[in-house]
């Protein structure tokens, strides 16, 4: 770990306000971060926070939902601000958006906004107190973006919970994710259908609480 990161992690832990924990949702585009953000908000505050779509990079700005309180079966409460972040990618091609039916001008604008979103997501890493890394369980877990996200959180000593989303799909292979990240707790969910959300919230208590 670089000295800069060590100091940043040290001061974050000293000045961390237990009542103002920031929980970030990080991951590659289209993994289901915003769907999970909406699921958490619907479960605990009856309001959605993000727009979701099948076109990648739908979330292009950091979105924050302040003061969400969740309770576990033992009656313990955990309060946090939920931060939905744009998906992190190494490439953004406006032609990919055009293939999804967007017109050229809109596709180019979306690509530009998406690049800014990725930069914002990376800059916000240092502000997080805990992160749920949302990965698509149907995709190859060994992508460099996944490894870079998890590695950067580890380097900053930020507690991590890995969420294997889309387990409702037949192609989902949670075991592959477990092989790729053996040192982390991995919870398989379907944010879309709310499957295994209790396990997810218990995982949050262990990681953040």
């Amino acid at each position, binding site marked *: 770990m670089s000295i800069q990161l060590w100091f940043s992690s040290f001061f974050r832990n000293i000045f961390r306000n237990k009542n103002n924990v920031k929980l970030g949702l990080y991951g590659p585009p289209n993994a289901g971060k915003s769907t999970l953000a909406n699921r958490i908000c619907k479960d605990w505050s009856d309001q959605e926070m993000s727009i979701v779509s099948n076109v990648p990079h739908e979330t292009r700005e950091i979105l924050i939902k302040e003061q969400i309180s969740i309770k576990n079966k033992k009656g313990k409460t955990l309060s946090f601000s939920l931060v939905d972040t744009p998906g992190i990618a190494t490439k953004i091609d406006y032609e990919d958006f055009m293939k999804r039916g967007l017109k050229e001008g809109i596709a180019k604008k979306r*690509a*530009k906004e998406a690049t800014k979103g990725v930069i914002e997501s990376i800059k916000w890493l240092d502000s997080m107190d805990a992160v749920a890394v949302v990965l698509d369980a149907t995709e190859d877990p060994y992508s460099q973006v996944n490894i870079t996200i998890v590695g950067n959180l580890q380097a900053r000593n930020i507690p991590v919970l890995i969420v294997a989303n889309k387990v409702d799909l037949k192609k989902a292979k949670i075991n592959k994710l477990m092989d790729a990240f053996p040192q982390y707790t991995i919870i398989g969910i379907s944010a879309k259908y709310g499957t295994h959300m209790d396990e997810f919230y218990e995982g949050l208590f262990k990681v953040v609480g």
Partner: protein
Amino acid sequence: MTIVKQEKIVLLEGQLQKEEEATLIEQTMGEISDKFRGIELAVIYPEKNNMDVLKRLRFDIARLLVGNRQGFTIVGPASIVKRIKQNPGSIELLTQEKRRRK
């Protein structure tokens, strides 16, 4: 980045630090335009788990003395490198024919 933007694949000795990987992604995003669509990146880390204690100690001392030169890093333009597929024991780099731009 300059070399990658010239549509060449760069193979570097040694692995990038995690924060360097993040910085590279940030820089890439800042460079994206109609012509440059980004990069494919793969960092191959040395397998430390299979080392015995002595080997691991030698590995760490060597890293302290000469820097992090274990492993390697591949960076290629997304216009040429379609995908870099990593598995714990192998790496596959899939290229694509350059597309004609209007």
